[in-house]
């Protein structure tokens, strides 16, 4: 439910233009006259330093502000007694700061994820992990990049539009039963931000982006992503899961126009002998 709630907050954040300022986080106070992003997302809950729990990797200076690769590295295993339940990825100075909420479970084995985001201005990028016992942990990186949200989409438009809705799953070679295997789900989608302008009509290209990515394995959900416009075009998520037996990975992707894209891929893990 928290996930839904934070997703619904996004338009509010957009209107207020609030930011997740360093002071708000460090001092745990409200951000001047209007509520800070931290308060909107996490209320008055304490957020602990993420040392030993998670690390955030992001380039100091982005090569392409519209495609900034970030990795949230989990430093604790996904043990049933205590695991990382959600990772919220936040780009402070983006028009819509929450880039995505990534939901995971012990089935992931490891909660490490990588994705690609748009960065609109020099900003802190943050990851907040919530563990299954309800504790929040935080890691951040400062990224120098600008213009990523209004940057034009698609290098090769004909190819990109012809491919729209295609899903791709990449799996590490030779998955082993019972061991975390790295996977990548790729969605071909322009993820229009609503901030890209049509120069001739002076209108903005309407926002049209991937809202939800759900990945199941053998009937169990192994990843659920609530996305928004701060995810780059052709959203990509690297994640881990632990295959226990041969089965199908299925994915269901829904965009803001209600389009549903699906895919299925067989997985045949080997036993580790």
């Amino acid at each position, binding site marked *: 439910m928290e996930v839904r709630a934070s997703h619904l907050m996004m338009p509010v954040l957009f209107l207020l233009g609030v930011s997740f300022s360093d002071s708000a986080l460090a001092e745990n106070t409200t951000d001047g006259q209007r509520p800070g992003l931290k308060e909107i997302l996490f209320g008055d809950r304490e957020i602990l330093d993420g040392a030993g729990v998670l690390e955030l*990797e992001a*380039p100091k200076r982005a*090569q*392409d502000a519209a*495609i900034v*690769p970030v*990795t949230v590295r989990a430093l604790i295993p996904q043990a049933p007694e205590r695991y990382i339940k959600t990772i919220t990825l936040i780009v402070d100075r983006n028009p819509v700061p929450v880039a995505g909420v990534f939901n995971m479970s012990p089935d992931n084995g490891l909660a490490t994820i*990588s994705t*690609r985001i748009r960065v609109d201005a020099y900003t802190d990028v943050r990851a907040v992990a919530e563990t299954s016992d309800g504790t929040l942990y935080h890691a951040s990186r400062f990224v120098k990049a600008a*213009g990523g949200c*209004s*940057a*034009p*989409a*698609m*290098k*090769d*438009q*004909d*190819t990109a539009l012809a*491919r729209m809705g*295609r899903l*791709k799953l*990449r799996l*590490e*070679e030779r998955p082993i039963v019972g061991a975390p295997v*790295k996977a*990548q789900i*790729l969605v*071909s989608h322009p993820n229009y931000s609503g901030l*890209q*302008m*049509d*120069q*001739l*009509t002076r209108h903005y*290209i309407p926002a049209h982006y991937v809202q939800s990515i759900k990945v199941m394995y053998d009937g169990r959900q192994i990843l659920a992503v609530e996305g928004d416009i701060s995810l780059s075009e*052709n959203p*990509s998520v*690297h994640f881990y899961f632990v295959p226990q037996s041969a089965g199908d990975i299925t994915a269901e992707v829904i965009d803001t126009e209600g389009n549903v894209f699906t895919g299925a891929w067989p997985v045949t893990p080997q036993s580790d002998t």
Partner: protein
Amino acid sequence: MTLRSFTLLGRWVMGITLWIAADGMAASADTTSAVPMPVRTIAPGVYVYVGRHEEATPHNLGATGNMGFIVGGESVAVVDTGGSARAGARLREAVRAVTHLPIRFVINTHVHPDHVMGNAAFAGDEPEFIGHRNLQRALVARGEYYLERLRESLGAAAAGTRIIPPTRIVDTEVTIDLGGRELNLVAHPAAHTDNDLTVFDAATGTLWTGDLLFVERIPVVDGSLKGWLEGTARLRATGAAHVVPGHGHPPPDALAAFDAQDGYLRKLLTEIRISIARGESIEHAVASVGRSEAEKWALFEDYNARNVVTAFTELEWE
């Protein structure tokens, strides 16, 4: 010495002096009295300004790509217009220093700002603005973004710069006539961008490649890496006597220039495919791919990583 040749010589000497004085200096604020761009003749009636291997600054007016013009019996065709209205105005003065024939055609080889942002300087000539069938779409998607970046980098020197979309579209191929001189314009499939247009002047065998060929400066992938390698193969086959690249000096040996560029692009292709097959992330690829070419190209550190990101997101869909 006839009066006419004396006048021409005088104009030439004066022009050279002005070029020496002006090259590297920002043009005056008044675009109507701009100093001519220092163009060189590479074949009869073919004039080229070789852009600087720099990012756009108020100093270079965004004239960081090549541009120039071709003079026919009745009219002039301009090929690319520089990175700002002022750069375009300086190119227009260079045309006027050579001929008073009307400028009937302004050809944009692709959407990048250093090739289209000087169009406004020619609006008063009422030429046909000619571009690839995808150029307008690309201007729609990127124009505002480019103008924003231009205002940031040029400041007041960006004044007067605006987007002028094509008034005539090349679907696959078009021939225009400058009066006894025909230019063949070819629209290419996605390569450097998805709107690359080349210009061939049959009279001198001169091929203007636009940014399908980079010389000295690192090639920038903004369309399709695989498409670009295919496009280069087609250009090699034209057997042009002279080649005007989109960046860098017209090469004495065009095939060697294509070889150098293909070498870099193939390296990207091979190394990124290996990286993807290994399941590596973009960050990993950025740190290693293409590095062995670092010493060969100007602005390598500014663009190689970006090329890797672009090509990686293309090739992971193979």
